[in-house]
């Protein structure tokens, strides 16, 4: 039988006053420090003893400057501490980076959105993380910093498996960088879950695309909860790119997207159902973006 733990186990709480101090605290303490952003994943995980009990919990909220959402001509920068709520409520994100704001507003509850961060969502790296397909379809990158320096990693090279990423133990994700999207591009994030509130995605599909003279100029398709990590569907994208997105072609691309998936079979949905839904939801998302053109 599963033990129900009501209390948190013992750990020390660290509150660094600067990025330098934070990076110094995590370097050389491999394995014993856990970073805390909103804590909406971390605290329940530690409480349930799903992760090894950390000796130290380092609260990043005391590091100045990490909460900003910045718009500039070449895109958008989302600081590590920007909450799901702040991203969901940002009018420019809603207008120009629609899949991300749609994903944010469909996550969890007001209480969780007020605390949880988009960065924490991708660092936690569950296959169903709602912001991941949206950010993949937007071509996002992340900036990782450590005492050794900073590096940028495209999001499609960031996830390595369920709950694992390329982040090293002395690194901290400081920023999510989203490039400016093509003028006239449109995007959508569709989330399928049995309940329409407070539920994880059974399948999540994000599409970002641009049309020119009835031809699909550019498209990115990303899928969540259908493989060990959130993924892109590059072959399906290639079918559409440079072609007229007829209903037949959209159907073919959606079937192709299915070949990229390897969903799990669990109590939330069977493998067959998830597969059928990848096809149906991808087709629906593509039709939303390119629909009505013959």
């Amino acid at each position, binding site marked *: 039988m599963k033990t129900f733990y*009501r*209390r*948190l*186990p*013992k*750990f*020390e*709480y660290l*509150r660094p006053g600067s990025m330098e101090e934070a990076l110094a605290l995590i370097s050389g303490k491999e394995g014993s420090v856990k970073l*805390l952003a909103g*804590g*909406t994943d971390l*605290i*329940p995980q530690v*409480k*349930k003893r799903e992760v090894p009990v950390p000796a130290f*919990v380092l*609260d990043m*909220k005391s590091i100045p400057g990490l909460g900003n959402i910045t718009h500039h001509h070449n895109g958008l920068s989302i600081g590590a501490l920007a909450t799901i*709520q702040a991203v969901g409520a940002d009018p420019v994100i809603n207008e120009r980076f629609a899949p991300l704001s749609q994903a944010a507003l469909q996550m*969890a*509850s*007001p*209480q*969780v959105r*007020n*605390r949880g961060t988009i960065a924490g969502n991708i660092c936690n790296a569950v296959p169903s993380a709602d912001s991941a397909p949206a950010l993949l379809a937007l071509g996002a990158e992340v900036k990782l910093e450590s005492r050794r320096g900073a590096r940028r990693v495209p999001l499609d090279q960031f996830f390595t498996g369920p709950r694992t990423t390329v982040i090293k133990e002395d690194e901290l994700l400081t920023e999510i960088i989203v490039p400016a999207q093509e003028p006239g591009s449109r995007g959508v994030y569709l989330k399928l879950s049995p309940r329409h*509130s*407070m539920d994880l995605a059974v399948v999540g599909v994000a599409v970002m695309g641009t049309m020119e003279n009835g031809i699909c100029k550019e498209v990115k398709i990303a899928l969540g909860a259908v493989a060990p990590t959130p993924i892109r569907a590059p072959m399906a994208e290639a079918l559409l790119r440079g072609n007229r997105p007829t209903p037949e072609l959209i159907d073919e691309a959606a079937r192709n997207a299915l070949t990229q998936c390897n969903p799990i079979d669990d109590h939330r949905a069977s493998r067959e159902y998830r597969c059928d839904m990848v096809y149906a939801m991808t087709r629906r998302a593509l039709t939303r973006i390119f629909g009505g053109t013959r």
Partner: protein
Amino acid sequence: MNLHCRVNEKEYDLEIKPHMTLLDLLREELGLTGAKEGCGEGECGACTVIMDGKAVNACIVLAAEAEGKEILTIEGLAREGTLHPIQEAFVEIGGLQCGFCTPGMVLSTKVLLDDNPNPTEEEIKKGLEGNFCRCTGYTKIIESVKVAADKVRG
């Protein structure tokens, strides 16, 4: 470790354990048992309190994270023995049965109405999506929020 915060407009200087949740602090150290512990993992909203104007689940916030913050619990809502209009509405309409979810429902309603004094039914449902009720079937709760909105707008 030391914690300084305001709870229901009262200043506190407290000695806390770093691994204590805000809910443990409120219920067990300060004796404010209005916020309830249902799931303990952010799912049910029974532990909802308002921190710096935003609804949070106290069961997954560390007490240490409340440093310098202003916290409002259900105990801080009534004024000199007079119920807050939202509380009045829940009582009048009967938006509760066992009452376990009610403190959280009322506080989520407060932030909803602070932000949007005239919400549609859909907006009410969205605003309360993080608060579960196992008794009422929600109909009376939604009605209570509508009446509360009328009262708050005056």
